[in-house]
């Protein structure tokens, strides 16, 4: 292992920060140059994420699992210095982020990056914040990275300006500022009791907390949890999400699809680490809240999808359903369900991001308010002018429309969870894990009611998504008689296609990917290796990764 490879873990944070800062210095008129840096940096991040993922998944020659690359900033020993930890979960999230970012940035090159100043810098800062939040092993450092990504996201929400975006941005910023303050309260409460901010150290100290202080630690964790659930858009704290996401420019909304998953990531990491099986009396603290919040979010999102009249709102509600599903599955606290939730999270994030991008292309050829008009027509039965439509029979759809239609069908099958793509496999994995709880032998034992609730919620939300998507699709592709074919460029269609192809790949290689997710879930539910690797004194530190 060379010395440079040791510092590889820092690169996903340092590279975008550096690129963003450099681009700030470049004049705004040299847009091609900035775009070049942004694209190069984003694709470099994909490479980095793949390298880290392979490292974290590799098994060292001496047989020890080396899935933890621990990077100590300034070589300070663990509880005192800040650590960056690259394990299976964080490298997976890094890869997902960089893939979404690459798709969004290529898409934005067609026209959206010209809609306002400093798009490329803000984009890179957002990536730095996201990557940092996924990598850090320190609670307060997590807060700093959260603020970094939020500050960048405030700028990106407002990118393109206009009253709708400023209004949505105002609500978004206010809600997130309150969440950040809650985050601080939770962190300081936990620090006041446990006396440490290092996540691994915290996990070691929580079982030993005296019972009088335990309530305070739990209160701190609950306040912290509310901050994360708010960011993930869990009901009843997710009302800001559909408005913000549908008002944001499409490439920004596509990247924001990962932002709700940051909340899911932190809950997965912290909750399973601090309140896993080893936490003594606090084990599984708050799990039922996660499940019920998740189920309510699924219901709210499904109803929202049925009610939404334009497609970008529909996509935003699909984000809500996906984050609700993830939380409901995580909250059950079973390794099998967590693995399914991870698989589902990857697929649904890719699918909704592709849908956000696709919506803009489809909407481009239509006059504004067409959806409103269509709904009014449905209700009042006016404008049934399909008599002249006989002349139109047999007209071939232009290639662009055919591509958009195919993309739409693929997105619909991802969001509704229908067979060809990975959405179906993800839901299948979730349900089969929910209905086969560990320790249940064939024909004996009852399936807990909450599993049935998850089953009903998943199936019904899939049905709602299917109905909503079919209605939107019919309205966008079949109903308009004299619609103009939108002008779509290759660099706009390619990212959408790439994201959907990735969904297909995820379905085709479901076996190995699911195996990786299972390994991830196992190490999340048994975090002893994580704690040990982080707390190990640096002089005894083994090399950072595989090979």
């Amino acid at each position, binding site marked *: 292992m060379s010395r440079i490879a040791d510092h590889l873990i820092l690169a996903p944070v340092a590279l975008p920060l550096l690129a963003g800062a450099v681009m700030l210095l470049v004049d705004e008129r040299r847009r091609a140059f900035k775009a070049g840096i942004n694209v190069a940096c984003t694709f470099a991040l994909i490479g980095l994420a793949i390298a880290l993922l392979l490292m974290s998944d590799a098994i060292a020659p001496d047989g020890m699992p080396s899935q933890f690359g621990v990077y100590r900033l300034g070589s300070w020993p663990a509880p005192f210095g800040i650590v960056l930890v690259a394990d299976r979960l964080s490298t997976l999230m890094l890869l997902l982020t960089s893939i979404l970012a690459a798709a969004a940035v290529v898409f934005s090159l067609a026209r959206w990056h010209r809609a306002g100043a400093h798009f490329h810098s803000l984009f890179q800062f957002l990536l730095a914040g996201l990557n940092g939040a996924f990598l850090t092993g320190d609670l*307060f450092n997590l807060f*700093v990275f959260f*603020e970094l990504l*939020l*500050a960048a996201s*405030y700028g990106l929400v*407002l990118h393109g*300006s*206009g*009253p709708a975006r*400023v*209004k949505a*941005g*105002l*609500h978004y*910023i*206010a809600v997130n*500022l*309150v969440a*950040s*303050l809650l985050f*601080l*309260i939770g*962190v*300081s*409460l936990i*620090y*006041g009791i446990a006396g440490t*901010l290092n996540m691994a150290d915290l996990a070691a100290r929580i079982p030993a907390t005296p019972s009088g202080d335990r309530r305070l630690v739990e209160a701190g964790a609950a306040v912290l949890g509310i901050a994360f659930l708010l960011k993930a858009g869990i009901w009843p704290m997710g009302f800001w999400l559909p408005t913000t996401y549908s008002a944001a420019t499409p490439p920004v909304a596509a990247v924001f699809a990962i932002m709700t998953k940051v909340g899911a990531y932190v809950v997965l990491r912290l909750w399973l680490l601090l309140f896993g099986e080893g936490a003594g009396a606090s084990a599984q603290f708050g799990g039922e809240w996660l499940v019920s919040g998740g189920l309510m979010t699924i219901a709210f999102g499904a109803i929202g999808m049925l009610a939404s009249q334009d497609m970008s709102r529909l996509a935003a509600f699909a984000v809500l359903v996906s984050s609700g599903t993830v939380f409901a599955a995580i909250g059950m606290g079973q390794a099998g369900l967590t693995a399914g939730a991870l698989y589902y999270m990857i697929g649904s994030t890719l699918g909704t991001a592709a849908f956000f991008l696709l919506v803009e292309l489809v909407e481009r050829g239509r006059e504004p308010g067409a959806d409103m008009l269509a709904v009014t027509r449905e209700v009042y039965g006016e404008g049934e002018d399909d008599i002249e439509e006989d002349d139109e029979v047999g007209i071939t759809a232009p290639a662009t429309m055919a591509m958009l239609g195919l993309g739409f069908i693929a997105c619909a099958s991802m969001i509704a969870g229908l067979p060809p793509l990975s959405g179906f496999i993800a839901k299948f994995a979730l349900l089969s894990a929910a209905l086969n709880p560990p320790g249940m032998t064939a024909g004996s034992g009852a399936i807990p009611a909450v599993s049935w609730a998850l089953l009903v919620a998943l199936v019904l939300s899939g049905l709602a998504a299917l109905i909503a998507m079919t209605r939107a699709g019919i309205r966008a592709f079949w109903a308009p008689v004299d619609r103009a074919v939108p002008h779509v460029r290759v660099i706009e269609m390619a990212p959408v296609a790439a994201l959907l192809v990735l969904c297909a790949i995820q379905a085709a290689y479901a076996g190995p990917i699911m195996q990786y997710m299972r390994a991830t879930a196992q190490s999340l539910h048994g975090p002893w290796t994580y704690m040990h690797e982080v707390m190990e004194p640096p002089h005894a530190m083994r090399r950072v990764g595989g090979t």
Partner: protein
Amino acid sequence: MEAILALGIGALAGSGVWLILRPRTFQLVIGLSLISYAVNLFILAMGRLRIGAPPILLGPATGNPSDYADPLPQALVLTAIVISFATTALFLVVLLASRGLTGTDHVDGREQER
């Protein structure tokens, strides 16, 4: 001392929460600032209140740690102050943009119909 600080934090946080539930953007920004002051004091209080105890070791001699105040919350407070200052400034810009675009200082961008 603890009681006074607790009352102060409570007053600040309570006023802040009341203000962020108000419909005007200026009230919102003042409310957020008040809550952030309350949170900063709270972080400081979580390092335990000490009078006359320095946060860093004096001289090369390693003294008894219980003679010193916990330096970490003080560092955290500094970070939190800087971050909340920056985000408040950013929020003020959005507030002005919203005022300019909608012509009202209502958080919904339009006055409530009566």
